[in-house]
């Protein structure tokens, strides 16, 4: 991968230098030195070293806010992804959040023949079946559990709620013990080698399992398997669906008896689910179907939604925190009690921002952050009692 081929592949040369990208960019709003337009200009002027070793390259959130308004249709996030691959080859790995342990885990997972113990959290409460042709993608949740303990976020709560909801729909999904990281973070960090190894393993595993449908509770895994695996020649021969899509479909058919949850909530569109895949209505339909839920939209919602501030666990700095503060303040100004999201990482980042110490904490709005499936599971419990 060279910078030239990245320019060709993403049609960056069409750039009109209008600067819409920079004016919309959530990072540029807080970090005056960051500008997508300037990054494109640097690339077009052939300043490869300056671009590759600039901090800005790894600050981009690849959230697609810029691209969807670009008059020249430049695919900036994919350009950044490919430029990061060039950077990785030159030895620039960006600043990894959480001291790089998540990246190290993904790289270690590429080791063939390892026997992960990723399903030990499973209990008899859940009905799963190895014969089922519906697969539940567990993703990184078992690894997130120890890492994000300090911020009181348990990613497996989302997985468990997803299983509860699926069981309530009469689905006994299959879970794969040998599933590995989907490679999303590695790919967006520019580490294509790790991504390819993980993708090949997972694609072969899914093919062997012979499933017809895969359900995701994480938009990143969903995006990666849906768009990136086929782009790397690993098309999966089955239907892929996010849990919110499945729920919206089944609620419409009247398959789910939902109990009352009295809460005023606002919905955070995860960038991977919203702008990357265009799913805005399904989660809102689910929210509106729960009796007692009042959905209030934030000023920036749907395709204009503001990102949670960090993606692929790279370059999490004070500007990322400023973005989160902006978003949390916006949510607080709607008088909502909770932010509902359908991405475990949005939840991680918002919770992390709220547990910060000292001055920042005092100025940070405090809201409850909850995943959509957890809310549905709560509502199901309400219907039972």
């Amino acid at each position: 991968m060279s910078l030239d081929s990245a320019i060709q592949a993403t049609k960056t040369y069409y750039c009109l230098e209008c600067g819409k990208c920079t004016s919309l960019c959530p990072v540029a709003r807080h970090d005056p030195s960051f500008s997508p337009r300037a990054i494109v200009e640097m690339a077009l002027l052939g300043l490869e070293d300056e671009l590759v070793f600039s901090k800005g390259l790894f600050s981009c959130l690849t959230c697609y806010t810029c691209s969807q308004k670009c008059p020249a249709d430049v695919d900036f996030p994919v350009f950044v992804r490919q430029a990061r691959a060039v950077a990785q080859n030159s030895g620039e790995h960006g600043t990894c959040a959480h001291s790089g342990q998540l990246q190290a885990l993904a790289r270690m997972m590429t080791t063939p023949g390892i026997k992960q113990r990723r399903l030990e959290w499973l209990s008899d409460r859940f009905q799963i079946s190895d014969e089922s042709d519906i697969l539940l993608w567990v993703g990184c949740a078992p690894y997130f559990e120890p890492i994000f303990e300090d911020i009181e976020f348990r990613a497996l709560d989302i997985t468990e709620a997803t299983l509860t909801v699926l069981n309530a729909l009469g689905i006994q999904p299959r879970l794969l013990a040998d599933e590995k990281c989907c490679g999303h973070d590695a790919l967006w960090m520019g580490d294509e080698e790790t991504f390819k190894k993980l993708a090949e393993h997972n694609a072969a595993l899914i093919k062997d399992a012979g499933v017809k449908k895969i359900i995701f509770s994480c938009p990143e895994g969903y995006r990666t398997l849906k768009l990136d695996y086929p782009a790397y020649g690993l098309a999966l021969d089955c239907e892929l669906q996010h849990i919110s899509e499945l729920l919206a479909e089944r609620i419409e058919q009247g398959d789910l008896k939902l109990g009352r949850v009295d809460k005023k909530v606002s919905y955070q569109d995860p960038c991977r689910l919203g702008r990357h895949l265009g799913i805005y209505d399904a989660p809102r339909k689910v929210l509106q179907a729960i009796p007692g839920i009042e959905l209030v939209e934030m000023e920036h919602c749907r395709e204009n939604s503001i990102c949670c501030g960090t993606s692929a666990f790279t370059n999490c700095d004070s500007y990322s925190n400023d973005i989160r503060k902006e978003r949390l303040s916006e949510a607080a100004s709607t008088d909502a009690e909770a932010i509902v999201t359908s991405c475990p990482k949005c939840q991680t980042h918002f919770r992390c921002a709220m547990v910060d110490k000292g001055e920042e904490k005092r100025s940070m709005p405090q809201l409850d952050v909850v995943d959509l499936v957890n809310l549905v599971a709560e509502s199901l419990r309400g219907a039972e009692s």
Partner: protein
Amino acid sequence: MPEFEPKIVAFCCNWCTYAAADLAGTARIQYPPNVYIVRMMCSGMVSPDYVLRAFEKGADGVIVSGCHYTDCHYIDGPIKCDAMFAKVRRLLYTLGLENERLRREMISTSEGTVFARLVTEFVEQLRQLGPSPFSPASKGVLSESG
């Protein structure tokens, strides 16, 4: 085939365990040469990533060792280290690594013999366990003996 020689990475705090290792050396206490010592200013400074990286690069065992709770030069380093250690142990357990490959020790400056005994025992234990699943040796490619 030559006998398997385990590789150990030991993160030792500057004030206690590193000095203990030094003492073991000056006192001419014999212990196996399988250990690579990384000097840290405090055991509380060892980040989970360092431990992960050691295993990623082919270590068969990792020791994280520092001062006893009351000896820390930075007040609460060992407590931070305990929290980090519990976290990284769970991560590595989920990844499929045996818990025995990871050791949390507290060895003070005067305990040169304790350090030597620890390394001797650990090497023996790792010999029984065999190469780490992440080590090149377990993939059929024998690493250069260290």
